[in-house]
């Protein structure tokens, strides 16, 4: 029976089963791991191999130069490169979380490679002390490293993304440590990396700030090897007297103790999941120790490399890759010899069903009540299976059972199929990523896709992301950039077509980013063609500038309507080009030109003048000069003392001259001329009156001020000088006289001659000054009865107002007057009778 053969391969450790299926026969040839330094990335990642220069090995027919080779987990070569770095021996080599290979040599230099064995610049040094003292040991974790120098100092890079080295506290111990282990920053209380150092008779905890000695029953005597579990909660210790201990990370209690009968520490010590610890010596069987029961021995005839994973250990040998893991409960319940669990019966039922045996139905009847859990167990077990045919059988069993379940979550099987399809795809020896389902869930699909595209498996990545309904932008973007880098020989136009064909697959993808990459690779023309397809101007324009397409950038920015982008282009060109060229570029483009003028008006006055001169807009220069003259006037330094009036007048005269250059600006020219003249006259007036009250007032104000001061001659002079009309003159003089309440002079003025605009100014001035008596002198002289009526009304003479209004025969006016007198009831009725009479008249 098939069931028996499955379980036959299992090993029992106390009450738990372990299995060690082969994942791949290694595809590499003539590999001897014992001659090499090997770095294997977890989560089924790549394997880096380089000849170990700390060992004396015999060279076969190979170059004396060492080669760094990178393989997939199935042993297929991804890339290789010759190792020629100075700096002494290679001490440590490990993969980071984002699959960068970190190599640390004796002098503390850190070299980084991607999976394509391309060196990532720049190289980083761990510092002067490392350089002088030499690095002797490196302890890596997913995202950092701690190094030990010959002098016993500890240095670290806490984050490979930042790559800034730091020194940890000095231990003060005289001897070099026996062993070390690292607790990742994410598992420590402080958030900084902590190093466990086995030195002398005990263990020290070292971090950036200090050293602390560990107390606990697990630490009695020197420690030879330590390793922290992947969740940072437990520590496995190999003691000087050959015992293996497992303790809680805070050294509280001993969870496991086993005497190995060998004082020689194991070469490799690794956690297998969280349930057991593996010890490897190259001359004895691999030892697996659990908390209880007898340990398990695995025989091997080749050197091994243990690769700890979150749910087990992968075991790499010269010829194969195996996975050692605890058998999941669901699998045990189905395949355990003699199992009568519902899941096992369901699995058996399928077998009967396939063989058309009636026993199938019998089985089903037996487990009817617990069918859902049986189905669930089959699905779960399928997930943990590497063997595709067994996955299929288990899923068929689940599906068969599900047909008899009424209330089972239907999409569970579908979901598992989806997951398994992805897993099987990446497990293919061609791809060589042997992820278990637990690892896959921990890693997340998006990281898996990122790893695939890093390994240039774009098609698979695209298919997976499409299959899982994820955004394909990342994949296509990376593909496009890689394609550009790799296609130096393809002409721009052809490459553009190839790229566009794929970029179109993804809406909203940033063409600008691809174009930027093309530009970085020295393909400016291709970049220009690509950026043409970018719909977002805010991304397009800066790129156009960086590839020198200034004209297009200016055009695109203008089209976008975003003035900020136009300014970006303007400032760029302004800085790069000589002024005349710059002026030429913007002159014919209204928006950039106006924006430039608007900015320069505020901040670059002189430069703006140059612009207007170069474009022949002399009147604009004139306006600028005129404005400057006003600013001189506003300047507090210039208000007192006349010497500054000189330059002001000169500026205005210059402006006047420029205005007169064109026919269309005669008015402005005349006005500037008058302004200059006015300033001169005002200046003279200030000198003669010794009062600084004239400059910068208007012509009308100047006249008023003269009259108020009693200087009628000067007022007259200003009037004739500027050809002030009689009308305006009358208004000004009347108001000025009213201001100083010189009613006699006002009356005299009214009699000088018949006023050109009648007596209204006189009435208004008196009414405004609240001089009824004076007003009455002029009201009767008003020619228009309506005006008379209103004037009477304003000084509160209702009867006279009414009379005048009725004379004017204006009903509307009467109504309005009534409103004015609304408070006064008597007056109001007066208007009512008048209006009635008026309307009556209107009818007749």
């Amino acid at each position, binding site marked *: 029976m098939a069931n028996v053969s499955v379980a036959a391969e299992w090993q029992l450790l106390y009450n738990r089963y372990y299995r060690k299926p082969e994942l791949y026969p290694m595809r590499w040839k003539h590999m001897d791991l014992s001659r090499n330094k090997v770095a294997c990335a977890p989560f089924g990642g790549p394997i880096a191999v380089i000849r170990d220069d700390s060992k004396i090995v015999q060279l076969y027919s190979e170059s004396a130069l060492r080669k760094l080779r990178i393989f997939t987990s199935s042993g297929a070569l991804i890339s290789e490169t010759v190792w020629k770095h100075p700096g002494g021996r290679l001490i440590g080599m490990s993969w980071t979380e984002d699959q960068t290979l970190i190599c640390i040599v004796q002098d503390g230099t850190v070299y980084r490679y991607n999976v394509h064995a391309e060196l990532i610049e720049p190289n980083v040094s761990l510092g002067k002390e490392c350089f002088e003292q030499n690095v002797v040991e490196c302890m890596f974790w997913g995202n950092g490293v701690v190094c030990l120098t010959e002098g016993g100092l500890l240095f670290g890079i806490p984050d490979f993304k930042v790559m800034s080295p730091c020194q940890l506290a000095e231990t003060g111990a005289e001897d070099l440590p026996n062993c070390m282990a690292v607790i990742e920053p994410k598992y420590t209380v402080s958030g900084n990396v902590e190093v466990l150092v086995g030195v002398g008779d005990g263990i020290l905890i070292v971090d950036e700030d200090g050293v602390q000695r560990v107390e606990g029953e697990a630490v009695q005597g020197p420690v030879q090897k330590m390793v922290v579990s992947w969740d940072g909660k437990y520590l496995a210790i190999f003691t000087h007297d050959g015992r293996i201990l497992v303790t809680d990370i805070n050294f509280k209690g001993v969870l496991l103790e086993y005497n190995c009968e060998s004082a020689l520490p194991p070469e490799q010590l690794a956690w297998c999941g969280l349930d057991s610890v593996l010890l490897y010596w190259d001359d004895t069987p691999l030892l697996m120790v659990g908390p209880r029961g007898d340990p398990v021995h695995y025989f091997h005839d080749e050197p091994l490399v243990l690769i700890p994973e979150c749910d087990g250990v992968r075991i790499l040998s010269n010829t194969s890759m195996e996975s050692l893991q605890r058998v999941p409960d669901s699998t045990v319940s189905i395949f355990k010899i003699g199992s009568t669990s519902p899941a096992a019966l369901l699995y058996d039922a399928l077998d009967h069903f396939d063989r058309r045996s009636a026993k199938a139905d019998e089985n089903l009847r037996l487990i009817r009540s617990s069918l859902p859990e049986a189905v669930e167990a089959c699905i779960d077990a399928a997930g943990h299976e590497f063997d595709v045919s067994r996955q299929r059988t288990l899923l068929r069993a689940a599906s068969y059972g599900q047909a008899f379940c009424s209330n089972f979550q239907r999409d569970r099987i579908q979901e598992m199929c989806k997951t398994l399809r992805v897993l099987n795809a990446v497990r293919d020896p061609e791809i060589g990523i042997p992820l278990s389902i637990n690892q896959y869930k921990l890693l997340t699909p998006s990281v898996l896709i990122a790893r695939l595209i890093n390994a240039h498996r774009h098609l698979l990545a695209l298919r997976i992301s499409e299959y899982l309904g994820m955004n394909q932008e990342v994949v296509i973007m990376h593909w496009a950039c890689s394609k550009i880098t790799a296609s130096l020989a393809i002409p721009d136009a052809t490459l553009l077509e190839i790229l566009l064909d794929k970029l179109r697959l993804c809406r909203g993808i940033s063409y600008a980013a691809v174009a930027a990459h093309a530009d970085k690779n020295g393909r400016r023309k291709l970049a220009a063609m690509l950026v043409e397809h970018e*719909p*977002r*101007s805010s991304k397009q324009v800066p790129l156009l500038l960086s590839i020198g397409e200034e004209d297009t950038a200016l055009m695109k920015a203008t089209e*976008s*309507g*975003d*003035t*900020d982008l136009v*300014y*970006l282009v303007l*400032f760029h060109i302004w800085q790069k080009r000589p002024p005349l060229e710059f002026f030429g570029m913007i002159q014919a483009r*209204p*928006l950039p*030109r*106006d*924006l430039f*003028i*608007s*900015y320069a008006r*505020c*901040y670059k006055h002189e430069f703006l003048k140059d612009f207007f001169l170069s474009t022949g807009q002399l009147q604009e220069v004139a*306006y600028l000069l*005129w*404005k400057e003259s*006003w600013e001189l006037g506003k300047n507090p330094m210039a208000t007192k003392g006349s010497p500054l009036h000189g330059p002001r007048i000169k500026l205005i005269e210059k402006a006047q001259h420029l205005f007169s250059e064109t026919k269309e600006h005669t*008015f*402005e020219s005349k*006005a*500037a001329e*008058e*302004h200059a003249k*006015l300033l001169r006259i005002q200046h003279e007036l200030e000198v003669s009156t010794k009062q600084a009250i004239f400059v*910068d*007032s*208007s*012509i*009308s*104000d100047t006249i008023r001020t003269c009259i108020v001061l009693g200087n009628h001659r000067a007022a007259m002079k200003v009037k004739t000088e*500027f050809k*002030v009309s009689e*009308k*305006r003159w009358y*208004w*000004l003089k009347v*108001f000025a006289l009213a201001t100083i309440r010189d009613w006699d002079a006002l009356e005299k003025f009214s009699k000088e001659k018949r006023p050109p*605009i009648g007596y209204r100014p006189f009435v208004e001035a008196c009414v405004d000054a609240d001089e009824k008596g004076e007003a009455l002198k002029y009201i009767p002289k008003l020619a228009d009865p309506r005006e008379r009526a*209103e004037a009477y*009304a*304003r000084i509160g003479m209702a009867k006279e107002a009414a009379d005048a209004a009725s004379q004017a025969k204006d009903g509307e006016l009467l109504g*309005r007057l009534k*409103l*004015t007198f609304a408070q006064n009831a008597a007056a109001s009725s007066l208007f009512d009778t008048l209006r009635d009479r008026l309307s009556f008249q209107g009818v007749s």
Partner: protein
Amino acid sequence: MAQIPNLDNSPLNLKSLSREQSQRDLVKILKDIRGKKCLVIEPKLGGSLSLIIQTSLLKEYGIELRHLSAEPVQTDCTKVVYLVPSQRDLMKFISSHVHNDISKGLQREYYIYFVPRREIQCEKILEEENVHHLMTIGEYPLYVVPLDEDVLSFELDLAYKECQVDGDTGSLWQIAKAIHKLESSFGVIPNLRAKGKASVLVADILNRMQTEEPVSSSDMAVPEINTLILIDREVDMVTPMCSQLTYEGLVDEFLRINNGSVELDSSVMGVQQEGKKMKVPLNSSDKLFKEIRDLNFEVVVQVLRQKATSMKQDYTEMTTTNQTVSELKDFVKKLNSLPEMTRHINLAQHLSKFTSKPSFLAKLDMEHTIVEASSYDICFEYIEEMIQKQEPLINVLRILILFSVTNSGLPKKHFDYLRRELLHSYGFEHMATLNNLEKAGLFKKQESKSNWLTVKRALQLVVEDTDTANPNDIAYVFSGYAPLSIRLVQHAVRSGWRPMEEILKLLPGPHTETKRGSLCEQSII
């Protein structure tokens, strides 16, 4: 009563989607800068913010509040946070502050948050002033401020000048962005009608934004806004030049409403405190104001009188006859509205001082004469006299613009004559004012025959016999003149542009009408 309007009755969820979002954004900015800090706000922006968040709330985040001016900031805080609109001239203030601190040996951390977004032209000036590297620069994306439950403001008070005079259309991008942001809350607006050069440009930019960063219409079943109508101010310069005659309009004309409140002497409100100013909020949270704000002022006086009389009647009944408890309760309820009544009676009384002046009535008369385009000469002489009497320039310019716009400019002789009179009366520095007005087309030389009469007739802008108490036409707001822009909106809502293309062609700028949203999007895919 709060100045921040109550938005509970708003037709859109402005409260949480617009105002509360803005509050959160601001609080986040302030929280992210740790410790005590001095917040320097540009005064105009401070006004807008008072409609978003109460200043007392800001103090909770350890903030000293200052207004931005040319004067250096006086504070003990080592962190200075500037919250300013992206305007070039303000950069000079800020850099002079920094230089001043440096010369005094003060070491401070500076933060600038630009509203609504950072702009290169401002940063360039900071660079040129050599302070850019000392600044931490961010942005506060405040694109719209809800003024009331049915009014949103972009707070772009310089936009018209920038567009018409300087040719700087930056504000149009901001408007488009603001609408785009609204669409992300309320769905893509399916109908878009635009009239005028700037409006069509805004529509273009808006559609561009929609293709660049589409608002996903899938999660919104039905867009909450049905139609977007964009009209250039340029299309209707007549209306803003006329004196407003509604209650709210008059308050604004004589006392100026800023950020939903009016500031006046406390004596107006019957509080006897010499020279003390007080702020009166004016928004729909005030029920009485909501009822009377849009009524013609004449009617408002009547309404208030009626209310006062009925209140008095109730009171006498209350004191003379026996009342049941429920009647008492009703009365007390009515009493609650007493403060609102007193407030508006006081305001109305104050306003009537202005409205009863003969000069005000004469001005209204003149405005009507101009709008009716009945007598060119009378209007011309009236304006000439205003200038010669040196009446406040702003009044003169308003009526002058009204005159020029309805006549599509003045004959060269009159144009030059009035310009000369203006310069003589108000000073030659106003040459720049005149130049700007000419650039904006507000006061210019006549080059073609005016089509105002045709427009006026076609859109029935002048309506005789409007019943201001029970109006059936919008013309009541100006006692006989129906605002041109309102007429356009009425047509746009009723029938769209198509039936009125002939009239639209008479007004400046192009017009467009587009259907947008999910339907179009699908056809693209």
